[in-house]
């Protein structure tokens, strides 16, 4: 057994705290170690060359690298082992960066800890066994959850590469929040006009859309997911409906439209917006007279294709995919709890999205500016920034898009209504992005008044006007201004239902509630679960341009996976010693993946593990009463050797 130990300086990240020379010297005293070296950057080519040449010259068969977290570079070094004809599992990493030099300041104690961590890794590698990777097939299809701009972009990129794409959208139309907006910064183009060509993806031969549908269950694993989708009853037979719209025209029931920010109404049978895709309406059973009173039937009577079906049931559809992209977008923060802003109490206090609908040509007022309270034309506007963002009482993070969309709306007001007075009450104006600062400049030149300060109070006046009080933190003056309308730049929150989806997918969320990426810089579209990727605001607030980039990244990640027909899995799986197993089935009880079957063998029962289904958690090993069950790479003697090494004194 010839073990090589390599201690990385990681520049000064490790060497600045830990005495790498001493650790290297110490490593040579350990049983089985024939060579120990240190180097500035072990993961660089010259660093890896040191290992390569030692494998050749010193006949190394096992290697320990003391460096960063294995999440970072375990694969790098396993690949070196493999390339040199060795077995990638005769390798261990001692994490002396994230779990040592970066968290400790006492140099002696950190160095002493590094001795222990290296000793533990050497003890473990000594007991490692060569393992062969398990080869599994890959389903060359992808599931995209969410049909906003992120989901659309990712779907198109994959479909254009020839992969079949299943898109699941919870609303009845794809388009997402982008379809609600008036104009987009910094180009001031119409979102629907730039979105429509993408929404034509429903005609793509490789894309299947399930709208008004939700993910019910996901089983399987990377390359081989099985997804059940609940296709909720639309009460409309999709194959028959021709989207003529007669049903919604004739429907007698009006309901406040959530899509329009409750500033307008829709019918009980409705499409979200005129350009909806698919153009199939959905019957809202909570408000339809047929369901609430048992009488009406107008839609059924007028439908020329007899597409209305009041008895339609939810349908469960199963699809097999190799990769999943989560593109569930965001939800707008409801500012009601911030009582001083009077949202919900004063009708002329709106959220950002409501204002987008109010100014949208296909919105509730067809783009004509009207105050919700009395229909009068507002002339004085106040935009209040950071509502629910950058605030320890609500969300600490910056929602990133609010500065620019407010500047956009303010500029549009000055452009289209030059007589209007427009104030922006801001914390900081964050206009980083190509063309953004220039756009902000232009809005200043156009006469938008920027006042630095958090509004302390919005007071409703008898004529429905609003009085705002704030301090101008640049001049120190107390500032009062009367306006006709106030618009709150509300925070972006994780989309509704994110918690449920997180449970279904078994992915993590960050402290901000958004889904968590595998690495903030280097793996921004991956999750920690292989085969599941993130696109757009599902991972955190970002604007349309950044969302498209992120979605393209996620599509690229997914296609790297599904472009193969086969892939290999780490062989960290459980196995039972048939000579000891008594077939009691305790292991099967704790296995969450159905990987264990109790089978007859020579007239008695034994447990048998399906290596492909086994995920390697090891719960069965702990449940086994007589030591028959074991798990590769984490066997009892391997873990015990690390405990023993930890307790030895250097």
């Amino acid at each position: 057994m010839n073990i090589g130990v390599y201690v990385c300086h990681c520049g000064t990240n490790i060497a600045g705290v830990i005495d790498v020379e001493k650790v290297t010297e110490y490593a040579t005293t350990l049983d089985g170690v024939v060579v120990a070296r240190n180097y500035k950057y072990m993961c660089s080519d010259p660093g890896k060359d040191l290992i390569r040449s030692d494998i050749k010259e010193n006949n190394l068969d096992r290697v320990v690298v003391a460096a960063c977290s294995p999440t970072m570079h375990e694969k790098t070094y396993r690949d070196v082992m493999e390339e040199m004809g060795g077995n990638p599992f005769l390798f261990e990493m001692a994490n002396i960066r994230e779990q040592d030099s970066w968290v400790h300041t006492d140099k002696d104690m950190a160095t002493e800890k590094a001795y222990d961590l290296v000793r533990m890794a050497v003890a473990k590698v000594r007991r490692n066994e060569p393992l062969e990777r398990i080869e599994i097939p890959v389903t060359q299809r992808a599931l995209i959850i969410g049909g906003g701009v992120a989901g659309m972009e990712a779907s198109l990129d994959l479909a254009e590469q020839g992969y079949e794409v299943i898109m699941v959208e919870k609303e009845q139309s794809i388009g997402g929040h982008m379809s609600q907006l008036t104009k987009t910064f910094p180009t001031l183009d119409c979102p629907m006009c730039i979105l429509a060509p993408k929404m034509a993806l429903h005609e793509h031969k490789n894309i299947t859309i399930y709208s008004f549908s939700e993910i019910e269950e996901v089983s399987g694993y990377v390359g081989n997911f099985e997804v059940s989708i609940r296709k909720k009853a639309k009460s409309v037979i999709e194959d028959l409906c021709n989207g003529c719209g007669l049903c919604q025209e004739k429907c007698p029931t009006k309901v406040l439209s959530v899509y329009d920010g409750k500033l307008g109404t829709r019918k009980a049978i409705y499409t979200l917006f005129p350009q909806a895709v698919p153009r199939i309406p959905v019957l809202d059973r909570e408000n339809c007279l047929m369901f609430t009173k048992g009488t009406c039937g107008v839609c059924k009577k007028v439908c020329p294709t007899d597409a209305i079906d009041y008895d339609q049931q939810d349908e469960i559809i199963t699809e097999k995919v190799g990769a999943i992209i989560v593109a569930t977008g965001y939800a707008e923060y409801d500012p009601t709890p911030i009582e001083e802003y009077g949202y919900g109490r004063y009708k002329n206090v709106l959220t950002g999205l409501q204002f987008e609908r109010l100014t949208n040509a296909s919105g509730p007022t067809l783009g004509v500016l009207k105050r919700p309270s009395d229909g009068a034309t507002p002339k004085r506007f106040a935009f209040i920034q950071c509502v629910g963002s950058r605030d320890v009482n609500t969300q600490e993070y910056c929602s990133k898009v609010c500065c620019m969309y407010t500047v956009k709306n303010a500029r549009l007001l000055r452009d289209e209504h030059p007589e209007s007075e427009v104030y922006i009450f801001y914390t900081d104006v964050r206009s980083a992005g190509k063309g953004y600062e220039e756009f902000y400049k232009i809005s200043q030149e156009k006469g938008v008044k920027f006042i630095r300060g958090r509004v302390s109070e919005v007071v409703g006046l008898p004529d429905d006007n609003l009085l705002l009080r704030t301090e101008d933190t640049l001049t120190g003056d107390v500032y009062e201004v009367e306006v006709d309308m106030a618009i709150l730049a509300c925070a972006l929150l994780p989309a509704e239902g994110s918690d449920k989806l997180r449970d279904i997918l078994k992915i993590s969320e960050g402290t901000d509630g958004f889904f968590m990426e595998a690495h903030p810089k280097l793996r921004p579209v991956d999750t920690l679960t292989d085969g599941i990727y993130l696109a757009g605001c599902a991972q955190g607030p970002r604007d349309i341009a950044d969302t498209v980039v992120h979605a393209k990244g996620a599509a690229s990640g997914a296609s790297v996976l599904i472009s193969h027909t086969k892939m290999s899995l780490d062989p960290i799986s459980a196995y039972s010693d048939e000579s000891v197993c008594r077939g009691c089935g305790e292991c099967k009880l704790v296995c969450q993946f159905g990987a264990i079957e109790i089978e007859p063998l020579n007239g008695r029962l034994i447990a048998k593990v399906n290596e492909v289904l086994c995920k390697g958690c090891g719960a069965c090993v702990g449940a086994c009463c007589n030591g028959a069950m074991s798990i590769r790479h984490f066997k009892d003697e391997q873990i015990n050797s690390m405990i023993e090494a930890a307790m030895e004194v250097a």
Partner: protein
Amino acid sequence: MEPKIVAFCCKWCSSAGADLAGTSRMKYPPNIRIIRVMCSGRIEPSYILHALELGADGVIITGCHLGDCHYIAGNEQAKKRVEMTTELLETMGIDPRRLRLEWISASEGARFASVMTDFVEEIKELGHSPLGGVS
């Protein structure tokens, strides 16, 4: 002599949380020796006893929050086994405070650092394990 603590961290949540504590340059006392396993459900009472028997002053097992286990319910197995081992420690006359189970997610770097700081402080108050040096 400084107390020594063996920590078993699952790969998906708590070890990632430990890494995040590092990436965020949070500080905690250097008394912890982390053994990374796939899941807290892998931890057997015998490992805990083995560490204590060899003189560990404390053992801490960390996993994903209940309901968040990467393997669905491995952390529930961990919970059962730690409860069982706690009883065993009481019977053996070992202060059960020397064994701790904590849920730390991949995004809780700060929590990892504070849990470890707290545990090290508690162990320092308890003093060295009576089993220290038995082996």
